[in-house]
């Protein structure tokens, strides 16, 4: 059926078939979790539910914190302010520039906190589903960033044609201009949004898949392994999966940071006068 069968065959040959139907390699199909509505396009899936929960948590947290602000911040206020300062200063002000970064801080802050919470749901017990491992959700986030930076650029350069003209760096010989225009056009309109969405999606999918392989494989080796050596390597796989979980934590922070950083970078390109 699937190309995963190679490894599955190898594992079932290695481990004398103890289970009923052998080892099933975790694959992309494990990320399809319909909850309500069966298999139609309008199904409420598990990532959709997790996304709604994350939005609820974020809204409740920041509204409740900002309702009772004190001069000397408490623990939760300190946390909220830390996140806000990080996005505002490190990402917003340093990249977009002091002149007009303030109008983009709400967008950047929403992106950062939302992606961070959704990524962390990948390893928080009982939720344990990285929402961004369904490609549709990063695509929507990227679409928002895409529309924002093109709109800002067209407004700043006073029209679509001047915007296209500004894509070509100044001071080039005439014959180079069309070639560079095609390259820059592809970068701005195709490659940037494509990689922005796929980076987040790919990292979350691959990381979660790796955890699945170690945990499911470890369980299989431990319970269905034919000899003591295989059982022991199952325990080892479990131990390794715990280490990988901490590695995932790092990746999840990093991906939320990079997505927001690149969004800010694209906006700063749009805002800047030249190029």
């Amino acid at each position, binding site marked *: 059926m699937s*190309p995963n069968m190679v490894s599955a065959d190898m594992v079932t040959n290695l481990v004398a078939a103890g289970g009923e139907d052998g080892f099933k390699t975790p694959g992309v199909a494990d990320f399809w979790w319909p909850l309500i509505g069966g298999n139609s396009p309008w199904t409420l899936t598990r990532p959709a539910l997790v996304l709604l929960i994350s939005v609820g948590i974020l809204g409740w947290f920041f509204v409740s914190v900002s309702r009772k602000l004190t001069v000397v911040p408490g623990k939760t206020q300190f946390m909220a302010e830390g996140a806000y300062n990080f996005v505002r200063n490190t990402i917003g002000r*340093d990249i977009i520039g002091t002149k007009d970064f303030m109008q983009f801080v709400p967008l950047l802050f929403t992106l950062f906190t939302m992606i961070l919470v959704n990524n962390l749901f990948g390893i928080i017990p009982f939720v344990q589903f990285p929402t961004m491992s369904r490609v549709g959700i990063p695509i929507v986030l990227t679409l928002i960033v895409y529309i924002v930076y093109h709109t800002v650029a067209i407004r700043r350069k006073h029209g679509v044609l001047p915007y296209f003209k500004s894509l070509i760096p100044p001071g080039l010989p005439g014959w180079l201009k069309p070639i560079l225009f095609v390259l820059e056009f592809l970068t701005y309109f195709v490659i940037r949004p494509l990689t922005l969405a*796929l980076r987040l999606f790919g990292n979350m999918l691959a990381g979660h898949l790796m955890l699945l392989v170690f945990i499911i494989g470890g369980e299989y080796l431990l319970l269905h392994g034919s000899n003591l050596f295989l059982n022991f390597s199952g325990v080892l796989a479990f131990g390794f999966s715990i280490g990988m979980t901490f590695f995932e934590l790092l990746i999840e922070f990093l991906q939320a940071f990079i997505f927001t950083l690149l969004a800010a970078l694209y906006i700063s390109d749009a805002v800047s006068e030249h190029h």
Partner: protein
Amino acid sequence: MYGSIAYLGYGLAAIGPGIGVGLIFAAYINGVARQPEARGMLQTIAFTGMAITEALAILGLVFAFVFQGTNPN
């Protein structure tokens, strides 16, 4: 035994970005070691460079899923 050679292709495609990301962070560590006060500025540049380099590996990952081919059996 059958499988998809696309996964092998992805493995090969990951070599280049792997080396590239290594080079970027080597340069970043060098820069911070020589001039610790430039850390904030270098950090942004390093992560931006990493994101651009990593894009190649991610395109490879996606293409590995896209061009899986069909099962001959």
